[in-house]
């Protein structure tokens, strides 16, 4: 269970997060959405401890994470898998070495066991015959999937994604969304995704948190979004003509 309570974060004199409290649903996909600059990435980085909050509490299974020492935070982080916006794969290592890295660092598995586990994870994300390629030799979509394989290799309890489909073509984006949904279901992870893509929201958002100007402006399920009266959320969700058309068709009684 991950929960944040009344957190504040400022850079210099600019307040980026203001009094945010959220309960992230366990074993579900929780999406943080909002415009660029609304504080999504800062919130995600605060939750995983890459940024220190100024005030408030971040709880992992009732343990106050933000008050822990670096050493104790490390123990909790071993249960976290994170996929960064750019993949953050180690450029000097091959696909296989990237996925194997957490196993090398934190397990006493034999080389054969590690190799087997790496292949299982790569198969799970549909990466085949790329073990010996370097990140620069594979496409952006493949890099994201390798990053996901690396994130799940230790069977984490919590999965975090920062803009998982940014920069991908629509087909690759749909494949990544489906993969995230399947992983959350199969591995029973609590998944937190930071996105501004409405397709992702409608495809996989069990719980959606909308940030606006550094504050939690709205929360609910993906089904509630279409009927919301919240002006700022409406402006965000129905910013494109396509989305407006879908809404209008829906309102006029057409099936979507």
């Amino acid at each position, binding site marked *: 269970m991950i929960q944040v309570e009344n957190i504040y974060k400022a850079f210099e004199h600019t307040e980026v997060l203001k009094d945010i409290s959220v309960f992230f649903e366990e074993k579900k996909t929780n999406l943080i959405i909002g415009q660029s600059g609304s504080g999504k990435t800062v919130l995600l980085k605060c939750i995983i401890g890459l940024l220190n909050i100024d005030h408030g509490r971040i709880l992992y299974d009732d343990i106050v994470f933000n008050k822990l020492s670096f050493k104790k935070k*490390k123990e909790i982080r071993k249960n976290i898998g994170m996929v*960064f916006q750019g993949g953050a794969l180690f450029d000097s290592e091959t696909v296989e070495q990237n996925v194997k890295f957490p196993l090398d660092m934190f397990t006493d598995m034999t080389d054969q066991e590690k190799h087997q586990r790496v292949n299982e994870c790569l198969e799970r994300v549909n990466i085949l015959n790329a073990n010996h390629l370097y990140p620069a030799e594979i496409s952006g979509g493949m890099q994201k999937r390798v990053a996901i394989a690396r994130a799940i290799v230790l069977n984490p309890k919590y999965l975090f994604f920062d803009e998982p489909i940014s920069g991908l073509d629509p087909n690759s984006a749909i494949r990544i969304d489906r993969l995230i949904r399947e992983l959350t279901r199969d591995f029973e992870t609590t998944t937190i995704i930071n996105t501004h893509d409405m397709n992702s929201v409608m495809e996989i958002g069990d719980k959606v948190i909308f940030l606006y100007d550094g504050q939690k402006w709205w929360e609910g399920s993906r089904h509630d979004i279409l009927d919301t009266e919240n002006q700022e959320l409406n402006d965000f969700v129905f910013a494109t003509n396509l989305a407006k058309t879908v809404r209008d068709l829906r309102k006029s009684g057409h099936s979507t």
Partner: protein
Amino acid sequence: MIKPFRDFFTHIGRYLMLMSRVFAPPEKKRMYYRQTLKEIEFLGINSMGIVAIISIFIGAVITIQTSYNTESPLYPSYLIGLAVRDILLLEFSSTIVALILAGKIGSNIASELGSMRITEQIDALEIMGVNSASYLIMPKIVAAVFFLPFLTIMSIFIGLTGGWLGGIATGVVSSSDYLYGIQYAFIPFYVTYTLIKAAIFGFIITSISAYRGYYSYGGALQVGKSSTRAVVESSIIILITNYILTQLLLT
């Protein structure tokens, strides 16, 4: 007026805090050992070529210059060998080689860590529960502290050989005089002195460059700036440290 002082002490504080993280106990010794071997190859073995080329020519040039500056019959020609030996041993092979390596490996370390920072690879390590400072920086420091003395010894021998070859080729000193000179009035402590300096310079180059790279931010431009700062700052600190060590060890 106050800002530069504040910035200076902020950097000192952050550098010390980084070093305290760098020397924390490793998560898995085998991984660090493997990483250290990689760094020895990357930072040390790959620098042998440039050190050898520079040393051989500097040795030859010192021989020729010393001979032209000591043309008086009052100076025995074996002093050329002595001068080459002492210049290489006391200054060139430790300090000048360290300055050259500050340019080569210092910029390399700063740009490598800077790129890792801006592409979130360092964040990825942290999230996995790895002490990124220790995992990425400690092997570089260990490799440099152990390998720079070796490069220094190599530089001394190659420089002496270069001086000998240069002396014979130009005829400014006979082989026997040169060989006598490099053994004449030899003070063994000079070797200890130069090895101590080399090890300390290895630490300075890697730790300062790593500090600059580790705390890079922004994009490619900032990584380039960090890399330049790493070279300039480690060179200046090498020169200051050289002065202090000379005062402490040789007087």
